[in-house]
């Protein structure tokens, strides 16, 4: 869930950067820095949602183990 907060924060920052760039009085020095930051955020988000192929972990034994443990304790 911490990840999702990361995505939400990135999206918010991107929207802020866009609003600043779209403002009429653009400072060239800031423009470059902001565009670089926006590109970095977009790259990070994109990399993370495409990073790997699907990873699957299967938990099968849970139920039986719990039962066996319960039996052993008796």
């Amino acid at each position, binding site marked *: 869930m911490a990840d999702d907060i990361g995505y*939400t924060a990135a999206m918010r920052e*991107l929207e802020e950067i866009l609003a600043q*760039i779209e403002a009429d009085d653009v400072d060239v020095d800031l423009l*470059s820095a*902001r565009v670089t930051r926006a590109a970095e955020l977009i790259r990070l988000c994109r990399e993370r949602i495409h990073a790997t192929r*699907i990873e*699957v972990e299967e*938990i099968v034994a849970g139920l039986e183990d719990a039962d066996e443990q319960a039996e052993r304790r008796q």
Partner: protein
Amino acid sequence: MEATYTVTELSRAIGRTLARAFPDELWVEGEIKDLSRSRNGHVYFTLVDPDSGDDQGQPAAVLPVTLFATDRGAVNRVLMRTGAVRMTNGVHVRIRGRVTHYPGRGTVQLRMSWIDTEYTIGRLAAERIAVLRRLDAAGLLEANARLPLPGVPLEVGVVTSIGSAAHADFLAELAGSGYAFTVTVVDARTQGPEAVTSLVRALDVLAMRGCAVAALVRGGGAQTDLAAFDDETLARTIALAPFPVLTGIGHEVDTTVADRVANRSLKTPTACAQALVAMVRAFEQRLDGLAAATVTAAVGGAQQAATGLGRRSGRLATATRLHLTRHGRSIDAATAAIGRRAPLATARASGATLRLASRTATATRHALTAEERRLDGLAAIQRTHDPGRMLARGWTLTYRGDRLVRRPGDVAPGDHIRTETAGGGVRSVVEEGDGEPHG
């Protein structure tokens, strides 16, 4: 000596007595237990009153039931016709049959001939309504729905029967999306008497492991197979889960209680996975939109700044020329004066003039270099965001003089304007501007 029966005689007497006491077929209701099928097509089970068990779970009364292969065809036909009821352990049924004595085992049993499927369906519906009413009273119906769905649900917990078609369908859909889903699948029984305990335990395992969203999926089945999904304990576990729960329980007609308390209920396991993929895709599309808007805005900003810098460097060049001319004149004047004066004075004055000239040149060089660097930096920004690519896609830039034309008000009829396209510039004269903003 009192009359003494042989075993056979007593057995027959019991049989006759039973036949007299229960001459006709009768209806019995109860819960199926210990169902088994023999190789020659007979079905055996016992019927008990639900929740009548003692501390050890032994029911107070049991009724052995036999469904012979000869009667089974008719019963199966009515089961098939409704499709909603299956005879399995734990299912509450109302059946018709004849009470008989089975001498071979010395037992009294019911020879089943018919089943009332409407009874089971109605009972399930009534139970479902009662459970929903209790959940509503406890404020649990919308509890899970109130949890916000994650914007990018890549950490997915799945509760399903591992190896089932539902399991395969769900994972195939996620894998096909190409997104970096991390899936924790917890195996659970999705039907039969252990289903509720098993499903609740699986959700508890996910709660301990943590996930952004959970999916509870299984394939379709008869309504009685879905009984666990109408269970109140399972419903409470879903309602109070620390993550949003999606259901894909795969059934056509009614929604189960689990569907009702879930955050979102989808028709099938595939639809459930598609919903998750759609959420990630929506995020990616927003990202794409922001990327495009940022590039457009940056190109516009750089363009504007370039125009401003061009003007400034032009002014600087003019100022420098003036500066040099003026100093050139004073150099000339000094030289002339030197010619008229003593050689010593000449030497002193020319030394001072040379120093002055040299300082002026250095200052100018510095000023020009700084401005050059700014222009280089700007060129780098423009290269990074490449307005050429925008032009190549068919966008054009129109200038009046060195000013970008952004709105009709920027030009007047008769103005000469220059339009930059990917292939080169076009010069034209403004006929008229309609002054209306173009949508």
